[in-house]
């Protein structure tokens, strides 16, 4: 009965278009009232949910990403990618994919990737006679790398939801699959470009190359600082994120110098907006997740799954399908917080490493960002390309295929996620 109240009111309110975080709170309160739990206990859970030092890394990564973005990192990464790969067939499309790989190392947001790289590259591609749906699809699908390639604030959310899986291991765990996704999408992008005979990229002036390389590498050095700090053990993840923010600040305002320092107000404001959304979800999910655990929902789900099949491959497949379906209709952060406490015990009971499961979870939900009926990245990409969502989704079809291929590889070949964390001994 308690479970029915909790999940029933949650689903009903979701359908009623009540904001998701509010939905989580109200269904928790209703269940709490029914069970005779003091509301103060739920309030305390909400505060406890955000009163965590490791979550502090999230605002820093978001601020660092916003600083770099405002300071014109997208154009620099595009130029940088162009020097490396622009000369081949479908040059601009290839640049799009590679620039997204780099962008993923600065910002963990696929949405930020699509909106900032896309608003530069999609119009350029259309001008060079690339099909609009192809331009949009390349932009959208390549941006999904961003949620996997470190630093990724979604990994930090998972780390917290999973009860403190090492952020360093998760970051390294996401890197392999993220790069693999980029590689497969790049191959597909190239194959289509050859078939459709899309143009090669414009040649770059020789004398500009050193400046482009220097500025691109300086930007990408952010990820070296962050990862170096975490992996060497000099900094905690949160401290690395803060130092990364300091570095982004110095590079943007004292080296690139495209924008005045007074823009920091706008940057903080924009970061606050993103944080307001994410942190409310985290706080609300803490209360909800606590009740889920109290009502032993995770054990029930895992019993059900194991009853259907005891074959670990089938169980992984079922989890992937559940996550893909949920990811198609809901956003990433709330799903990480709700599904982790339920599915992680299932995963570990069949011998999955928590890092491997985390990477798989984030990839499933990341793909969901690019799929209809609800996919924020798909919507924004289609809006920038000025094409209907249906047309964008149709153009995405081969790319969905590529993503599913990577997803299956990541699901069934744990080494892809685990060899880098193992290498550094985390």
């Amino acid at each position, binding site marked *: 009965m308690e479970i029915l109240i909790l999940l029933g009111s949650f689903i009903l*309110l979701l359908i009623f278009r009540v904001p998701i*975080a509010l939905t989580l709170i*109200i269904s928790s309160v209703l269940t709490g009232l029914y069970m005779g739990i003091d509301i103060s206990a739920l*309030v305390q859970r909400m505060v406890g949910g*955000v009163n*965590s030092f490791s979550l*502090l890394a999230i605002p820093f990564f978001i601020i660092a990403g916003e600083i770099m973005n405002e300071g014109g990192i997208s154009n620099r990464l595009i130029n940088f990618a162009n020097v490396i790969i622009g000369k081949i067939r479908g040059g601009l499309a290839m640049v799009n994919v590679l620039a997204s790989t780099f962008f993923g190392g600065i910002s963990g947001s696929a949405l930020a990737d699509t909106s900032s790289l896309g608003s530069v590259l999609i119009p350029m591609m259309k001008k060079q006679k690339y099909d609009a749906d192809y331009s949009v699809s390349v932009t959208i699908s390549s941006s999904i790398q961003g949620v996997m390639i470190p630093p990724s604030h979604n990994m930090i959310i998972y780390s917290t939801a999973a009860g403190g899986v090492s952020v360093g291991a998760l970051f390294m765990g996401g890197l392999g699959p993220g790069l693999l996704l980029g590689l497969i999408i790049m191959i597909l992008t190239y194959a289509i470009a050859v078939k459709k005979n899309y143009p090669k990229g414009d040649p770059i002036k020789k004398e500009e190359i050193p400046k482009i390389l220097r500025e691109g590498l300086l930007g990408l050095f952010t990820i070296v600082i962050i990862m170096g700090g975490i992996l060497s053990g000099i900094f905690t993840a949160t401290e690395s994120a803060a130092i990364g923010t300091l570095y982004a600040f110095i590079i943007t305002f004292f080296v690139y110098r495209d924008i005045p320092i007074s823009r920091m107000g706008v940057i903080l404001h924009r970061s*606050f907006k993103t944080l*307001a959304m994410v942190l409310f979800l985290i706080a609300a999910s803490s209360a909800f997740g606590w009740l889920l655990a109290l009502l032993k929902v995770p054990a029930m789900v895992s019993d059900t799954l194991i009853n259907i099949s005891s074959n670990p491959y089938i169980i992984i497949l079922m989890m992937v399908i559940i996550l893909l379906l949920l990811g198609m209709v809901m956003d990433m952060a709330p799903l990480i917080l709700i599904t982790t406490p339920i599915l992680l015990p299932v995963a570990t009971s069949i011998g999955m490493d928590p890092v491997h499961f985390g990477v798989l979870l984030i990839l499933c939900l990341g793909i969901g960002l690019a799929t209809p009926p609800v996919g924020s990245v798909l919507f924004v990409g289609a809006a*920038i390309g000025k094409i209907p969502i249906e047309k964008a989704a149709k153009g995405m079809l081969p790319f969905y295929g590529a993503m599913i291929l990577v997803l299956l590889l990541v699901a069934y070949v744990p080494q892809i996620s685990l060899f880098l964390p193992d290498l550094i001994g985390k």
Partner: protein
Amino acid sequence: MTCNFEEGFHQTSFGEASILYEERGVNMNALKSINDFLNKILLVTALTMLGAMVVIIIVQVFSRQIFNYTPSWSEEVSKLLFVWVAFLGIAYGFRERLHIALGLVIDRLSEKLQTVFDVFSKILILGLSIAMLYYGLRFTMLMGSSTMPGTGLPSSVLYAAIPVSGFFLFIYAINLFFEKGLHASLEDTEGH
């Protein structure tokens, strides 16, 4: 043609909003300016806290690496600021329509029905604000006697974020009833 339709649509929505304001009588402008003033306070507070958080952690790292000294208060204060930013963000997010919802079903209904569901959500938001004020205050007072280990500040400084955010949210929620809709359209969110 699409363009014309959209322009017309926006005009009506603005028109209706202003009619709503007029109908409710004289004090609407007062409410709106109180709302804007409070919002400025909230925003300045939150952004200052956010900036301070970054500075504190950076100082902590340097202090530890260079002077081999970690201040006992730095982690605790930055966590405290973080909780405040998070809770102020709850109120702010409702005002700025940042909190995401699932529009899968309701988006397909007629505009009139959509308004009904939006009003339902707004009532829930108002309820949340009252609950945050009531339980937040109760909790804050309850925690007045316990202190935080690093700084020695009373724990109520931490929990006061709830009723304070509840207060802002209460004002915003009332204001929401005089505005059309509840959710940002895709065009508004594109830049982020």
